[in-house]
Protein backbone atom coordinates (compact mmCIF):
# COMPACT_ATOMS: atom_id res chain seq x y z
CA UNK A 1 0.00 0.00 0.00
CA UNK A 2 1.26 3.47 -0.84
CA UNK A 3 2.19 5.55 2.22
CA UNK A 4 -0.10 8.35 3.39
CA UNK A 5 2.62 10.97 3.03
CA UNK A 6 5.50 10.55 0.66
CA UNK A 7 8.37 12.98 0.13
CA UNK A 8 10.76 12.32 -2.72
CA UNK A 9 13.99 14.27 -3.15
CA UNK A 10 12.65 17.47 -1.61
CA UNK A 11 14.91 20.51 -1.72
CA UNK A 12 14.26 23.79 0.04
CA UNK A 13 16.20 27.00 0.41
CA UNK A 14 16.02 30.26 2.30
CA UNK A 15 17.46 32.79 -0.11
CA UNK A 16 20.87 31.45 -1.06
CA UNK A 17 21.10 29.06 1.88
CA UNK A 18 20.11 25.51 1.13
CA UNK A 19 18.09 24.05 4.01
CA UNK A 20 17.07 20.70 2.52
CA UNK A 21 19.25 18.88 0.05
CA UNK A 22 17.01 16.11 -1.21
CA UNK A 23 14.98 14.65 1.63
CA UNK A 24 12.91 11.53 1.02
CA UNK A 25 10.67 10.24 3.75
CA UNK A 26 7.27 8.68 4.20
CA UNK A 27 4.56 8.26 6.81
CA UNK A 28 2.27 5.26 6.56
CA UNK A 29 -1.42 5.25 7.44
CA UNK A 30 -1.75 5.05 11.24
CA UNK A 31 1.98 5.34 11.80
CA UNK A 32 3.93 7.55 14.24
CA UNK A 33 7.13 8.75 12.59
CA UNK A 34 9.80 10.83 14.33
CA UNK A 35 12.36 13.15 12.75
CA UNK A 36 15.52 13.71 14.78
CA UNK A 37 18.55 15.85 14.26
CA UNK A 38 20.58 18.69 15.72
CA UNK A 39 20.02 22.40 15.33
CA UNK A 40 19.95 23.45 11.68
CA UNK A 41 19.63 19.89 10.41
CA UNK A 42 16.42 20.81 8.57
CA UNK A 43 13.78 19.28 10.83
CA UNK A 44 11.54 22.32 10.99
CA UNK A 45 12.14 23.07 7.34
CA UNK A 46 10.97 19.58 6.45
CA UNK A 47 7.58 20.28 8.07
CA UNK A 48 7.46 23.76 6.58
CA UNK A 49 8.20 22.25 3.18
CA UNK A 50 5.29 19.84 3.53
CA UNK A 51 2.96 22.67 4.60
CA UNK A 52 4.07 24.88 1.75
CA UNK A 53 5.52 27.55 4.03
CA UNK A 54 8.83 27.45 2.14
CA UNK A 55 9.36 27.11 -1.59
CA UNK A 56 10.55 23.67 -2.48
CA UNK A 57 11.37 21.48 -5.38
CA UNK A 58 10.84 17.75 -5.43
CA UNK A 59 7.71 15.68 -5.05
CA UNK A 60 5.33 15.62 -2.11
CA UNK A 61 2.39 13.24 -2.35
CA UNK A 62 -0.39 12.86 0.18
CA UNK A 63 -3.00 10.09 0.05
CA UNK A 64 -1.82 9.27 -3.46
CA UNK A 65 -2.17 12.79 -4.81
CA UNK A 66 0.19 15.71 -5.30
CA UNK A 67 -0.05 17.95 -2.27
CA UNK A 68 -0.98 21.60 -3.01
CA UNK A 69 1.92 24.00 -2.53
CA UNK A 70 0.11 26.58 -0.39
CA UNK A 71 -0.61 26.17 3.35
CA UNK A 72 -4.36 26.73 2.88
CA UNK A 73 -4.46 23.88 0.38
CA UNK A 74 -2.37 21.59 2.56
CA UNK A 75 -4.77 22.16 5.45
CA UNK A 76 -7.69 21.40 3.14
CA UNK A 77 -6.01 18.18 2.06
CA UNK A 78 -6.15 16.96 5.68
CA UNK A 79 -2.80 17.82 7.23
CA UNK A 80 -2.73 19.75 10.50
CA UNK A 81 0.56 21.43 11.36
CA UNK A 82 1.33 22.47 14.94
CA UNK A 83 4.26 24.79 14.25
CA UNK A 84 7.32 25.49 16.35
CA UNK A 85 6.35 27.96 19.08
CA UNK A 86 2.78 26.61 18.95
CA UNK A 87 1.26 29.26 16.70
CA UNK A 88 -1.88 29.78 18.72
CA UNK A 89 -3.78 33.05 18.48
CA UNK A 90 -2.69 34.58 21.79
CA UNK A 91 -5.08 37.52 21.59
CA UNK A 92 -8.12 35.29 21.07
CA UNK A 93 -9.93 33.12 23.58
CA UNK A 94 -9.48 29.37 23.96
CA UNK A 95 -12.88 28.79 22.32
CA UNK A 96 -12.09 31.09 19.41
CA UNK A 97 -8.85 29.20 18.84
CA UNK A 98 -10.78 25.94 18.71
CA UNK A 99 -13.40 27.43 16.37
CA UNK A 100 -10.58 28.49 14.05
CA UNK A 101 -9.24 24.95 14.17
CA UNK A 102 -12.56 23.78 12.74
CA UNK A 103 -12.55 26.59 10.15
CA UNK A 104 -12.56 24.22 7.18
CA UNK A 105 -15.26 21.96 8.56
CA UNK A 106 -18.93 22.46 7.82
CA UNK A 107 -20.96 21.41 10.80
CA UNK A 108 -19.96 18.67 13.20
CA UNK A 109 -18.37 21.26 15.49
CA UNK A 110 -20.04 19.98 18.65
CA UNK A 111 -18.92 16.43 17.97
CA UNK A 112 -15.30 17.42 17.28
CA UNK A 113 -15.34 19.68 20.32
CA UNK A 114 -16.54 16.88 22.55
CA UNK A 115 -13.91 14.49 21.21
CA UNK A 116 -11.12 17.00 21.66
CA UNK A 117 -12.29 17.86 25.18
CA UNK A 118 -12.21 14.16 25.95
CA UNK A 119 -8.43 14.37 25.55
CA UNK A 120 -8.05 17.80 27.12
CA UNK A 121 -10.86 18.09 29.69
CA UNK A 122 -9.64 21.45 31.09
CA UNK A 123 -10.40 23.17 27.77
CA UNK A 124 -14.11 23.05 28.52
CA UNK A 125 -13.76 25.06 31.74
CA UNK A 126 -11.37 27.63 30.28
CA UNK A 127 -13.15 28.46 27.03
CA UNK A 128 -13.40 32.18 27.70
CA UNK A 129 -9.79 32.60 28.81
CA UNK A 130 -7.46 34.54 26.56
CA UNK A 131 -5.10 31.97 25.03
CA UNK A 132 -1.97 34.08 25.65
CA UNK A 133 -2.51 33.83 29.41
CA UNK A 134 -2.34 30.02 29.47
CA UNK A 135 0.80 28.33 30.74
CA UNK A 136 3.30 27.06 28.21
CA UNK A 137 2.10 23.47 28.54
CA UNK A 138 -1.53 24.52 28.20
CA UNK A 139 -0.71 26.56 25.12
CA UNK A 140 0.96 23.53 23.54
CA UNK A 141 -2.06 21.39 24.37
CA UNK A 142 -4.39 24.06 22.96
CA UNK A 143 -2.32 24.09 19.77
CA UNK A 144 -2.71 20.32 19.46
CA UNK A 145 -6.40 20.52 20.32
CA UNK A 146 -6.91 23.18 17.67
CA UNK A 147 -5.15 20.99 15.10
CA UNK A 148 -7.40 18.07 16.05
CA UNK A 149 -10.54 20.20 15.53
CA UNK A 150 -9.92 20.00 11.78
CA UNK A 151 -10.10 16.18 12.00
CA UNK A 152 -6.80 15.76 10.17
CA UNK A 153 -5.57 12.55 8.59
CA UNK A 154 -2.01 13.53 9.46
CA UNK A 155 -0.88 15.54 12.48
CA UNK A 156 2.51 17.23 12.21
CA UNK A 157 4.14 18.49 15.39
CA UNK A 158 7.24 20.67 15.59
CA UNK A 159 9.10 20.22 18.90
CA UNK A 160 6.07 19.74 21.13
CA UNK A 161 8.34 19.29 24.17
CA UNK A 162 10.21 22.58 23.73
CA UNK A 163 10.51 24.51 26.99
CA UNK A 164 8.03 22.37 28.90
CA UNK A 165 8.37 20.56 32.21
CA UNK A 166 9.04 16.80 31.90
CA UNK A 167 5.71 15.92 33.51
CA UNK A 168 3.83 18.04 30.94
CA UNK A 169 5.85 16.52 28.10
CA UNK A 170 4.96 13.01 29.30
CA UNK A 171 1.28 13.97 29.43
CA UNK A 172 1.37 15.37 25.90
CA UNK A 173 3.07 12.26 24.50
CA UNK A 174 0.63 10.04 26.37
CA UNK A 175 -2.26 11.84 24.64
CA UNK A 176 -0.53 11.60 21.26
CA UNK A 177 -0.05 7.86 21.77
CA UNK A 178 -3.68 7.56 22.70
CA UNK A 179 -4.79 9.42 19.56
CA UNK A 180 -2.67 7.13 17.45
CA UNK A 181 -3.75 3.87 19.07
CA UNK A 182 -7.43 4.54 19.60
CA UNK A 183 -8.25 6.85 16.70
CA UNK A 184 -5.67 5.68 14.19
CA UNK A 185 -4.26 9.18 13.72
CA UNK A 186 -1.05 9.30 11.69
CA UNK A 187 1.61 11.50 13.29
CA UNK A 188 4.84 13.05 12.05
CA UNK A 189 6.76 14.54 14.95
CA UNK A 190 9.96 16.57 14.94
CA UNK A 191 11.76 16.33 18.27
CA UNK A 192 15.05 17.31 19.91
CA UNK A 193 14.33 14.96 22.78
CA UNK A 194 15.52 11.83 21.00
CA UNK A 195 14.86 9.39 23.84
CA UNK A 196 11.24 10.39 23.99
CA UNK A 197 10.84 10.58 20.21
CA UNK A 198 12.26 7.10 19.65
CA UNK A 199 10.20 5.64 22.45
CA UNK A 200 6.91 6.99 21.12
CA UNK A 201 7.40 6.35 17.40
CA UNK A 202 7.52 3.24 15.27
CA UNK A 203 9.96 4.58 12.70
CA UNK A 204 12.38 7.49 12.67
CA UNK A 205 14.62 9.53 10.41
CA UNK A 206 17.82 11.26 11.45
CA UNK A 207 18.53 14.45 9.52
CA UNK A 208 22.02 15.92 9.15
CA UNK A 209 22.70 19.11 7.20
CA UNK A 210 19.51 18.90 5.22
CA UNK A 211 19.70 15.24 4.29
CA UNK A 212 18.50 11.96 5.71
CA UNK A 213 21.54 10.41 7.39
CA UNK A 214 19.81 7.41 8.94
CA UNK A 215 16.38 5.84 8.90
CA UNK A 216 14.74 2.76 10.28
CA UNK A 217 12.50 1.35 12.99
CA UNK A 218 12.81 3.45 16.16
CA UNK A 219 13.84 0.49 18.30
CA UNK A 220 16.77 -0.24 15.96
CA UNK A 221 17.84 3.38 15.81
CA UNK A 222 17.82 3.51 19.59
CA UNK A 223 20.45 0.74 19.55
CA UNK A 224 22.50 2.37 16.82
CA UNK A 225 25.90 3.39 18.10
CA UNK A 226 26.16 6.78 16.38
CA UNK A 227 22.57 7.72 17.23
CA UNK A 228 23.25 6.86 20.85
CA UNK A 229 26.42 8.93 20.94
CA UNK A 230 25.08 11.93 19.06
CA UNK A 231 21.48 12.17 20.19
CA UNK A 232 20.89 9.99 23.21
CA UNK A 233 24.09 10.85 25.03
CA UNK A 234 25.27 7.47 26.22
Amino acid at each position, binding site marked *: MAPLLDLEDVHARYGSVQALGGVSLSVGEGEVVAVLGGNGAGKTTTLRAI*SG*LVTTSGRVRFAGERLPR*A*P*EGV*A*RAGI*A*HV*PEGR*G*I*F*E*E*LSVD*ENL*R*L*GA*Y*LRRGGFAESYERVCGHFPWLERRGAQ*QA*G*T*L*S*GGEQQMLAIA*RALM*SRPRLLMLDEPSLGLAPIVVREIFRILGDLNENEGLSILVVEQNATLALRSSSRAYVLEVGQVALEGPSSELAENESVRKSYLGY
Partner: protein
Amino acid sequence: MTELLQQIVAGLSSGSIYALLALGIVIIYRSTGVVNFAQGEMATFTTFIAWTLVDHGVGYWGAFGLTILIALVGGIALERIVVRPVEGKPVINGVILTIGLFILFGGLSNWIWKAEVRSFPPSRPFPTSAWNLGGVAVSKQDAGILAVTLVLMVLLWLLFRYTKLGLALSASALSPTASRLVGIRVGWMLGLGWGLAAAIGAVAGLFTAAAAPPLDPNMMRPVLIYAFAAAVVGGLESPIGAVVGGLLIGVVLNLISTYDTHLHLDLDRVRLPIALALILLVLLARPTGLFGKQVVRRV
Protein backbone atom coordinates in the same frame (compact mmCIF):
# COMPACT_ATOMS: atom_id res chain seq x y z
CA MET B 1 -33.17 71.46 29.15
CA THR B 2 -34.75 71.59 25.72
CA GLU B 3 -31.80 73.62 24.53
CA LEU B 4 -29.37 71.02 25.91
CA LEU B 5 -31.24 68.17 24.23
CA GLN B 6 -31.37 70.10 20.98
CA GLN B 7 -27.61 70.58 21.07
CA ILE B 8 -27.06 66.90 21.84
CA VAL B 9 -29.21 65.94 18.87
CA ALA B 10 -27.20 68.25 16.64
CA GLY B 11 -24.00 66.70 17.98
CA LEU B 12 -25.27 63.19 17.32
CA SER B 13 -25.91 64.14 13.72
CA SER B 14 -22.33 65.21 12.98
CA GLY B 15 -21.09 62.44 15.27
CA SER B 16 -22.71 59.71 13.22
CA ILE B 17 -20.66 60.76 10.19
CA TYR B 18 -17.47 60.56 12.23
CA ALA B 19 -18.67 57.19 13.48
CA LEU B 20 -19.18 55.84 9.94
CA LEU B 21 -15.70 56.78 8.83
CA ALA B 22 -14.28 55.43 12.10
CA LEU B 23 -16.03 52.12 11.39
CA GLY B 24 -14.07 51.87 8.14
CA ILE B 25 -10.80 52.54 9.99
CA VAL B 26 -11.69 49.89 12.58
CA ILE B 27 -12.49 47.23 9.97
CA ILE B 28 -9.18 47.68 8.18
CA TYR B 29 -7.25 47.75 11.43
CA ARG B 30 -9.03 44.69 12.76
CA SER B 31 -8.76 42.62 9.61
CA THR B 32 -5.33 43.66 8.35
CA GLY B 33 -3.52 45.37 11.24
CA VAL B 34 -2.98 48.48 9.11
CA VAL B 35 -4.14 51.96 10.10
CA ASN B 36 -5.68 53.44 6.97
CA PHE B 37 -5.00 57.16 6.75
CA ALA B 38 -6.54 57.20 3.27
CA GLN B 39 -9.99 56.24 4.57
CA GLY B 40 -11.38 59.77 4.17
CA GLU B 41 -9.90 60.43 0.75
CA MET B 42 -11.18 57.07 -0.49
CA ALA B 43 -14.63 58.10 0.74
CA THR B 44 -14.40 61.40 -1.15
CA PHE B 45 -13.29 59.59 -4.29
CA THR B 46 -16.22 57.19 -4.19
CA THR B 47 -18.63 60.04 -3.48
CA PHE B 48 -17.47 61.67 -6.70
CA ILE B 49 -18.08 58.40 -8.49
CA ALA B 50 -21.66 58.63 -7.22
CA TRP B 51 -21.85 62.23 -8.42
CA THR B 52 -20.65 61.15 -11.87
CA LEU B 53 -23.27 58.40 -11.97
CA VAL B 54 -26.03 60.84 -11.04
CA ASP B 55 -24.62 63.30 -13.59
CA HIS B 56 -25.10 60.59 -16.21
CA GLY B 57 -28.73 60.13 -15.29
CA VAL B 58 -28.68 57.38 -12.65
CA GLY B 59 -31.14 57.96 -9.80
CA TYR B 60 -29.69 59.00 -6.43
CA TRP B 61 -30.38 55.80 -4.50
CA GLY B 62 -29.40 53.68 -7.50
CA ALA B 63 -26.09 55.53 -7.67
CA PHE B 64 -25.80 55.10 -3.89
CA GLY B 65 -26.04 51.31 -4.13
CA LEU B 66 -23.85 51.12 -7.21
CA THR B 67 -21.17 53.24 -5.53
CA ILE B 68 -21.10 50.97 -2.50
CA LEU B 69 -20.61 48.01 -4.82
CA ILE B 70 -17.86 49.79 -6.75
CA ALA B 71 -16.17 50.71 -3.46
CA LEU B 72 -16.34 47.10 -2.26
CA VAL B 73 -14.74 45.74 -5.42
CA GLY B 74 -12.30 48.66 -5.64
CA GLY B 75 -11.25 48.14 -2.02
CA ILE B 76 -10.55 44.47 -2.63
CA ALA B 77 -8.58 45.29 -5.78
CA LEU B 78 -6.63 48.02 -3.99
CA GLU B 79 -5.56 45.57 -1.30
CA ARG B 80 -4.65 42.80 -3.71
CA ILE B 81 -2.56 45.07 -5.94
CA VAL B 82 -1.22 47.97 -3.87
CA VAL B 83 -1.33 46.98 -0.20
CA ARG B 84 -0.16 43.38 -0.69
CA PRO B 85 3.57 44.19 -0.88
CA VAL B 86 3.60 45.62 2.67
CA GLU B 87 1.92 42.55 4.18
CA GLY B 88 4.04 41.08 6.95
CA LYS B 89 6.38 44.05 6.77
CA PRO B 90 7.04 46.45 9.68
CA VAL B 91 4.11 48.65 10.73
CA ILE B 92 5.83 51.77 9.42
CA ASN B 93 5.64 50.44 5.83
CA GLY B 94 1.86 50.22 6.11
CA VAL B 95 1.66 53.72 7.60
CA ILE B 96 3.73 55.20 4.78
CA LEU B 97 1.68 53.32 2.20
CA THR B 98 -1.68 54.56 3.47
CA ILE B 99 -0.33 58.12 3.74
CA GLY B 100 0.73 57.69 0.13
CA LEU B 101 -2.78 56.53 -0.75
CA PHE B 102 -4.16 59.58 1.11
CA ILE B 103 -2.14 61.87 -1.16
CA LEU B 104 -2.94 59.79 -4.25
CA PHE B 105 -6.71 59.73 -3.79
CA GLY B 106 -6.78 63.39 -2.72
CA GLY B 107 -4.85 64.30 -5.85
CA LEU B 108 -7.02 62.15 -8.09
CA SER B 109 -10.25 63.69 -6.78
CA ASN B 110 -8.91 67.21 -7.29
CA TRP B 111 -7.53 66.35 -10.70
CA ILE B 112 -10.50 64.49 -12.16
CA TRP B 113 -13.33 66.50 -10.67
CA LYS B 114 -11.54 69.83 -10.08
CA ALA B 115 -12.10 71.88 -6.98
CA GLU B 116 -15.44 73.27 -8.07
CA VAL B 117 -18.41 73.60 -5.85
CA ARG B 118 -21.09 71.11 -6.81
CA SER B 119 -24.53 70.64 -5.42
CA PHE B 120 -24.88 67.00 -4.58
CA PRO B 121 -27.05 65.13 -3.93
CA PRO B 122 -29.31 66.73 -6.54
CA SER B 123 -32.28 66.55 -4.23
CA ARG B 124 -32.21 65.74 -0.55
CA PRO B 125 -31.90 61.97 -0.02
CA PHE B 126 -34.00 62.13 3.14
CA PRO B 127 -37.13 64.24 3.72
CA THR B 128 -36.19 67.79 4.75
CA SER B 129 -38.82 67.99 7.44
CA ALA B 130 -38.23 67.37 11.12
CA TRP B 131 -40.03 65.68 13.96
CA ASN B 132 -40.86 67.67 17.02
CA LEU B 133 -40.16 65.57 20.09
CA GLY B 134 -41.21 67.58 23.12
CA GLY B 135 -39.82 70.81 21.75
CA VAL B 136 -36.67 69.21 20.36
CA ALA B 137 -36.47 69.29 16.59
CA VAL B 138 -35.02 66.12 15.09
CA SER B 139 -34.47 66.35 11.37
CA LYS B 140 -35.44 63.25 9.44
CA GLN B 141 -32.14 63.36 7.61
CA ASP B 142 -30.11 63.29 10.82
CA ALA B 143 -32.27 60.50 12.18
CA GLY B 144 -31.82 58.55 8.93
CA ILE B 145 -28.04 58.92 8.97
CA LEU B 146 -27.86 57.92 12.63
CA ALA B 147 -30.09 54.89 11.99
CA VAL B 148 -27.92 53.71 9.09
CA THR B 149 -24.82 54.14 11.24
CA LEU B 150 -26.29 52.12 14.08
CA VAL B 151 -27.48 49.35 11.76
CA LEU B 152 -24.04 49.07 10.17
CA MET B 153 -22.44 48.99 13.60
CA VAL B 154 -24.68 46.16 14.78
CA LEU B 155 -24.06 44.19 11.57
CA LEU B 156 -20.30 44.56 11.95
CA TRP B 157 -20.42 43.65 15.60
CA LEU B 158 -22.39 40.52 14.77
CA LEU B 159 -19.96 39.72 11.97
CA PHE B 160 -16.88 39.88 14.20
CA ARG B 161 -18.54 38.39 17.26
CA TYR B 162 -20.53 35.48 15.93
CA THR B 163 -19.53 34.47 12.42
CA LYS B 164 -16.77 32.26 11.16
CA LEU B 165 -15.95 34.86 8.53
CA GLY B 166 -15.52 37.56 11.17
CA LEU B 167 -13.28 35.31 13.25
CA ALA B 168 -11.23 34.48 10.17
CA LEU B 169 -10.92 38.21 9.38
CA SER B 170 -9.55 38.91 12.88
CA ALA B 171 -7.31 35.84 12.86
CA SER B 172 -5.75 36.83 9.53
CA ALA B 173 -4.66 40.15 10.99
CA LEU B 174 -3.36 38.63 14.24
CA SER B 175 -1.28 35.84 12.75
CA PRO B 176 -1.26 35.30 8.98
CA THR B 177 0.88 32.16 9.14
CA ALA B 178 -1.19 30.42 11.80
CA SER B 179 -4.33 31.41 9.88
CA ARG B 180 -3.05 29.87 6.67
CA LEU B 181 -2.19 26.68 8.57
CA VAL B 182 -5.82 26.30 9.69
CA GLY B 183 -6.91 26.75 6.08
CA ILE B 184 -7.97 30.41 5.94
CA ARG B 185 -7.31 32.11 2.61
CA VAL B 186 -5.57 35.05 4.26
CA GLY B 187 -5.05 37.02 1.05
CA TRP B 188 -8.78 37.16 0.41
CA MET B 189 -9.55 38.02 4.02
CA LEU B 190 -7.26 41.04 3.86
CA GLY B 191 -8.83 42.04 0.55
CA LEU B 192 -12.30 41.65 1.96
CA GLY B 193 -11.35 43.82 4.96
CA TRP B 194 -10.35 46.64 2.63
CA GLY B 195 -13.43 46.11 0.50
CA LEU B 196 -15.81 46.34 3.47
CA ALA B 197 -14.01 49.40 4.79
CA ALA B 198 -14.14 51.12 1.41
CA ALA B 199 -17.86 50.35 1.15
CA ILE B 200 -18.61 51.81 4.57
CA GLY B 201 -16.36 54.75 3.74
CA ALA B 202 -18.46 55.32 0.63
CA VAL B 203 -21.58 55.57 2.82
CA ALA B 204 -19.74 58.03 5.07
CA GLY B 205 -18.73 60.16 2.08
CA LEU B 206 -22.23 60.17 0.57
CA PHE B 207 -23.76 61.18 3.89
CA THR B 208 -21.14 63.88 4.47
CA ALA B 209 -22.03 65.38 1.11
CA ALA B 210 -25.72 65.17 1.95
CA ALA B 211 -25.40 66.60 5.47
CA ALA B 212 -22.87 69.32 4.73
CA PRO B 213 -23.13 70.39 1.09
CA PRO B 214 -21.58 71.33 -1.23
CA LEU B 215 -19.55 68.42 -2.56
CA ASP B 216 -15.90 69.35 -2.55
CA PRO B 217 -12.77 67.23 -3.15
CA ASN B 218 -11.37 68.10 0.27
CA MET B 219 -14.55 67.59 2.27
CA MET B 220 -13.35 64.53 4.21
CA ARG B 221 -10.05 65.98 5.47
CA PRO B 222 -11.44 67.43 8.72
CA VAL B 223 -13.85 64.52 9.12
CA LEU B 224 -10.92 62.09 9.01
CA ILE B 225 -9.32 63.67 12.09
CA TYR B 226 -12.57 63.35 14.06
CA ALA B 227 -13.01 59.80 12.82
CA PHE B 228 -9.51 58.98 14.02
CA ALA B 229 -10.26 60.52 17.37
CA ALA B 230 -13.47 58.47 17.46
CA ALA B 231 -11.66 55.22 16.62
CA VAL B 232 -8.94 55.86 19.19
CA VAL B 233 -11.41 56.90 21.90
CA GLY B 234 -13.50 53.81 21.27
CA GLY B 235 -10.61 51.41 20.85
CA LEU B 236 -9.19 50.78 17.38
CA GLU B 237 -10.60 47.30 17.09
CA SER B 238 -14.14 47.74 18.34
CA PRO B 239 -17.03 48.63 15.97
CA ILE B 240 -19.17 49.65 18.93
CA GLY B 241 -16.30 51.72 20.28
CA ALA B 242 -15.96 53.52 16.95
CA VAL B 243 -19.61 54.52 16.95
CA VAL B 244 -19.74 55.51 20.62
CA GLY B 245 -16.50 57.45 20.12
CA GLY B 246 -17.86 59.19 17.03
CA LEU B 247 -21.13 60.22 18.68
CA LEU B 248 -19.29 61.31 21.80
CA ILE B 249 -16.95 63.56 19.87
CA GLY B 250 -19.82 65.03 17.86
CA VAL B 251 -21.76 65.85 21.01
CA VAL B 252 -18.77 67.12 23.02
CA LEU B 253 -17.65 69.48 20.25
CA ASN B 254 -21.17 70.80 19.87
CA LEU B 255 -21.72 71.31 23.58
CA ILE B 256 -18.41 73.11 23.98
CA SER B 257 -19.38 75.58 21.30
CA THR B 258 -22.83 76.19 22.80
CA TYR B 259 -21.96 76.49 26.44
CA ASP B 260 -18.56 78.10 26.21
CA THR B 261 -19.37 81.50 27.67
CA HIS B 262 -16.09 82.11 29.44
CA LEU B 263 -13.33 81.27 27.05
CA HIS B 264 -15.08 82.51 23.91
CA LEU B 265 -13.45 79.83 21.84
CA ASP B 266 -13.80 80.16 18.12
CA LEU B 267 -15.15 76.68 17.46
CA ASP B 268 -13.97 76.52 13.87
CA ARG B 269 -10.46 77.05 15.16
CA VAL B 270 -10.49 74.84 18.23
CA ARG B 271 -12.40 71.82 16.88
CA LEU B 272 -9.29 70.11 15.52
CA PRO B 273 -7.09 70.77 18.55
CA ILE B 274 -9.84 69.42 20.81
CA ALA B 275 -10.11 66.23 18.76
CA LEU B 276 -6.35 65.79 18.79
CA ALA B 277 -6.22 66.47 22.52
CA LEU B 278 -8.81 63.75 22.99
CA ILE B 279 -6.63 61.27 21.07
CA LEU B 280 -3.70 62.19 23.29
CA LEU B 281 -5.72 61.97 26.47
CA VAL B 282 -7.10 58.53 25.64
CA LEU B 283 -3.69 57.21 24.63
CA LEU B 284 -2.29 58.40 27.95
CA ALA B 285 -5.09 57.20 30.22
CA ARG B 286 -6.38 54.13 28.46
CA PRO B 287 -4.36 53.15 25.38
CA THR B 288 -6.81 50.44 24.36
CA GLY B 289 -9.72 52.90 24.22
CA LEU B 290 -13.07 52.62 25.93
CA PHE B 291 -14.04 49.35 24.28
CA GLY B 292 -10.65 47.92 23.34
CA LYS B 293 -9.67 44.57 24.76
CA GLN B 294 -6.71 44.62 27.10
CA VAL B 295 -4.40 41.95 25.74
CA VAL B 296 -2.18 40.15 28.21
CA ARG B 297 0.89 38.29 27.07
CA ARG B 298 3.06 35.93 29.03
CA VAL B 299 6.66 36.89 28.95
